[in-house]
């Protein structure tokens, strides 16, 4: 009898959490953005990607079960100037004819305490794939969750900027990437 009540209570509790389970999974492109900063001749130059898609699911109760996939349309780049936009889509840079998208695919999420997390996964650009760790924070606000993070990539790990552009004294190897992905509750 006691056993039965216990089981029933447990079941009820489980059902309750299930009902309350929140999942942020609807990508909000117009609230999200992916920007980057490169250094040219020691001077920071800002850029961003105008088009990208994210498929994600994040349940604050089970953050480590979260997953994400981000695909960036490289042709949508704003590299800071018209000259640069025309240049970076070319063969020596992204070669977007052959590799139109860059992607991040998560394999796991680690909780770092508070609202801080780390997405572990793989970044693929220009046919090259590298392990990556994306630290990010989550802010929940009603129907929306905002994921903010940044990471530093070495462009030469992906052969971005070949030939004369491989010279890192003109355009630095490190590129800072800042992302904000906003998702709505399902």
């Amino acid at each position, binding site marked *: 009898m006691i056993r039965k009540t216990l089981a029933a209570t447990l079941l009820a509790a489980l059902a309750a959490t299930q009902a309350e389970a929140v999942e942020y999974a609807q990508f909000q492109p117009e609230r999200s953005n992916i920007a980057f900063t490169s250094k040219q001749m020691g001077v920071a130059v800002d850029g961003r990607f105008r088009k990208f898609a994210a498929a994600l699911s994040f349940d604050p109760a089970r953050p480590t079960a979260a997953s994400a996939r981000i695909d960036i349309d490289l042709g949508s780049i704003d590299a800071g100037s018209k000259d*640069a936009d025309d240049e970076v889509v070319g063969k020596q840079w992204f070669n977007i004819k052959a590799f139109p998208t860059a992607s991040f695919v998560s394999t796991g999420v680690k909780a770092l305490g508070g609202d801080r997390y780390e997405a572990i996964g793989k970044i693929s650009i220009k046919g090259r794939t590298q392990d990556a760790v994306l630290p990010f924070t989550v802010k929940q606000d009603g129907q929306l969750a905002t994921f903010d993070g940044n990471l530093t990539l070495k462009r030469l790990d992906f052969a971005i900027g070949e030939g004369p552009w491989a010279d890192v004294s003109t355009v630095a190897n490190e590129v800072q990437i800042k992302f904000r992905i906003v998702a709505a509750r399902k």
Partner: protein
Amino acid sequence: MTPAARYTRTAIALHWLMALLLLGLFAVGLYMTGLKLSPQKLQIYSWHKWAGVSAFLLVLLRLGWRLGHRPPAPPATMPRWQQLAGEGAHHLLYLLMIVIPLSGWLMSSAKGFQTVWFGVLPLPDLLAKDKELGDLLATVHQGLSYGFAALVLAHTGAALKHHLVDRDDVLVRMLPFLKTR
């Protein structure tokens, strides 16, 4: 202050140092804008900006010196209108030596490329990034530079005329080693 009989060594040194620097800046400016984007182009642009800011600092120094040292008076044989034209041209040259670098700095800000003097000293961006404004300021920078070049040509022509036609000491007092006669 009474006018000196000749230009000071400092005035002469600054005149010729800046003349070389500015002609170099003008030539490099013309050359670099036509280049296809490459690491060299980015390097040359940076050097143009660094040298341009240096020219700006030099002209401030030069004007400081000039305030304390009146230039020699023009030869009394010169017609009044020529004296005035010469003085006006010199003032305009100084003005352009200030305004051209300023327009370059503002243009760089508006184009979203901050100026960091020799990669060390960042100049503040006085303008936010704005493509139209950047293009407009590039046109202003270009127009002022072309006007400056035309004025320098006239200035050089006048100096040569003084020396070769009028045979006065105007060029010699700015270029003392010519003093052979």
